[in-house]
């Protein structure tokens, strides 16, 4: 079966700026795939290329196995939800949702104002449209708002209307451009759940653009991390987190940011305090060690890697705490340790949150990156197998 959406070698320039660089992506039916990246990385442009609102300069977009490059947005089997919702302010909620259906089913003369109502033989079509609009409105729980204008709705209600307008066409692919970013924090978490419910219920493919890594990690079946116009890595959220192929992915995903310590590689191995970390490739010179905050332990007797650091402050969130240190090594980098509430209590009971402390990590939890940022596979480490297939390296 062909993929629902297939992007092959997409390039796009704005003037002399290369905003999309050789992007390829295969999306299967029913996937919830997130394009995530910092602002300006090209994720919204890529979404608009899929929609047909922007033309790519080279490459192919295929939906359901057929190239759609020559088709206008309305002829592609897609619907889109915009960041600002883009509801038509002069139309009622009902008319907003009905518009995509009317355009497709009514003869064009019947869609003009004033004369539209005079076209005969439209009764059946009008009833069908009204029925489907009501159905979708019921699903999105806005059936009581159909007569209102968008100006009379709250942000959350507008969001639902935008979703309903997308759903009413029953498209194969839903394109969503930061749809939750205009909502307040509480509502955003709530709508996240509703979007996931909707995705499961409809069984459609979702392409979701966000700069919020929490949205990306919590909602997606797969996450595509975009940086500087490229898709750097596409993988399931847990794999993106534990097994990043690039130091930029490792830094972008995960909050607080991954701890980075400089080290030296010699003849294909990194020399640590108590052991050598053998690399699968022969590398020499400076490398960077990456350790997630929860993998860095305080104290620890015999550890594969350890560093002395001065305690600076603690951010307590109740269930867990973030402990900030500054390394005593020459580079004095910042180090963060994530501790659960009981761990923090135990640490305090020992009287030890002061001065210079030893932080340590096991060899299996250390990610090694070369000086140009690429992940270096380590021998014998837990996540030694880095699949370079999905990596598009600079």
């Amino acid at each position, binding site marked *: 079966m062909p993929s629902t959406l297939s992007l092959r070698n997409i390039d796009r320039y704005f003037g002399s700026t290369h905003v999309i660089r050789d992007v390829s992506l295969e999306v299967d039916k029913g996937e919830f795939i997130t394009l995530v990246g910092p602002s300006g990385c090209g994720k919204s442009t890529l979404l*608009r290329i899929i*929609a*047909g*609102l922007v033309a790519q300069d080279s490459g192919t977009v295929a939906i359901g196995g057929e190239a759609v490059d020559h088709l*206008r*947005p*309305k002829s592609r089997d*897609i*619907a*889109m939800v*915009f*960041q*600002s919702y*883009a*509801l*038509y*302010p*002069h*139309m009622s909620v009902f008319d907003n949702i009905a*518009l*995509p259906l009317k*355009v*497709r089913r009514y003869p*064009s003369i019947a*869609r*003009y*104002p004033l004369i539209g109502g005079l076209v005969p033989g439209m009764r059946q079509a009008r009833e069908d449209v009204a029925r489907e609009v009501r159905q979708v409105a019921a699903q999105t729980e806005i059936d009581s708002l159909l007569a209102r*204008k*968008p*100006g009379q709705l709250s942000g959350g209600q507008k969001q639902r209307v935008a979703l309903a*307008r997308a759903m009413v066409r029953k498209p194969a692919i839903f394109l969503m451009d930061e749809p939750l970013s205009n909502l307040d924090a509480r509502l955003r978490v709530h709508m996240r759940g509703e979007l996931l419910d909707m995705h499961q219920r409809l069984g459609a493919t979702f392409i979701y653009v966000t700069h919020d890594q929490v949205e990306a990690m919590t909602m997606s079946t797969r996450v595509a991390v975009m940086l500087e116009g490229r898709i750097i890595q596409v993988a399931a959220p847990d794999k993106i987190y534990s097994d990043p192929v690039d130091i930029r992915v490792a830094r972008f995903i995960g909050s607080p940011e991954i701890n980075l310590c400089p080290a030296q590689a010699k003849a294909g191995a990194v020399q640590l305090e108590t052991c050598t970390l053998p690399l699968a490739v022969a590398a020499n010179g400076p490398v960077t060690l990456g350790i997630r905050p929860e993998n860095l332990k305080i104290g620890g007797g015999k550890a594969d890697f350890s560093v002395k650091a001065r305690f600076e402050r603690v951010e307590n969130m109740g269930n867990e705490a973030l402990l900030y240190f500054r390394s005593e090594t020459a580079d004095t980098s910042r180090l963060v340790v994530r501790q659960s509430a009981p761990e923090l209590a135990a640490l305090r009971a020992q009287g030890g949150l002061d001065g210079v402390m030893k932080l340590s990590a096991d060899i299996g939890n250390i990610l090694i990156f070369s000086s140009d940022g690429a992940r270096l596979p380590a021998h014998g480490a837990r996540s030694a197998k880095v699949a370079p297939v999905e990596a598009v390296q600079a």
Partner: protein
Amino acid sequence: MSTANIVQTVPRRLGAIVPQSVAYAFIAPALLCLFALLVLPILVVFALSFTDYELGDIASSFVGIANYQAAMSSPEFVNSFRNTVYYALLTVPFSVISGLFLAIVLFNLKRGRRLYQLIFFLPVTTTLIPMATVWRYLLHGQIGPLAQLFSALGLPQVEFFSDPQLAMPALAVISIWHGAGFNMVLFIAGLTAIPDELYDAASVDGVDHPLERLFTIVLPLLGPTLLFVLVMSLISAFRMFDLVGALTRGDPYGATDVILYTTYLEGYSYFRMGSASAMTMIFLVIILLLSIVQSRTIEQRVHYQ
């Protein structure tokens, strides 16, 4: 601590407590200007309209509504009222539609939008009286370029400003030329206010034929601007004076007599200020009615928020 300390007795705004006397002191200059420059003159004109005051007279007497009755039954005033309505009907639709047309065409230009905007706005920046002289030459029956073209084509010579049928339409053409650029700028401002995402949403939803997009998205969203431009054009059509004053002076045979010109003649050529004041009051009522229509409809019908 007593609760009296918390109770606010003075209205607070922007965090400051302003005594009412100070507040009134702040609006006093504006109120004074408004009264002295607007309300008072209108009251004086209103009072004069009930007298037989003539310019230069030392005394005058109260005549009741005689001036109004005279104006309503005077063939000159009725004719000038009819001419003004005719002029408005000739100019308003064309200057609004051509302004809208120019705005939509220029708004979608990829290059040179600023240049064309400047070109079409130029007539607005000119003073109408000298421009009217240019137009008089252009439309002149013997030496004008249009007359030359007509004679080259073997058509009869037309003296636009001496033909009762053509004089008003000729004035209307000049006025449309002068006013369309202004309307264009207002419409471009209205178009700029339509968010790009709405056009994107429309093309995803399937509204991508330019004409259909115009009727389903652009025009409804321009509604408030359209109404504003319409009423402003109407008001300026009713206030027409300079073209008639410079070009035709009401001729031929009163075919271009408009309300303000008749009023002006009444007051400053025949010195009948009482009668001119009554005509001015009638004119003011018309403008007032148009303004009320404008603010009412803007509040009720074309309000999307």
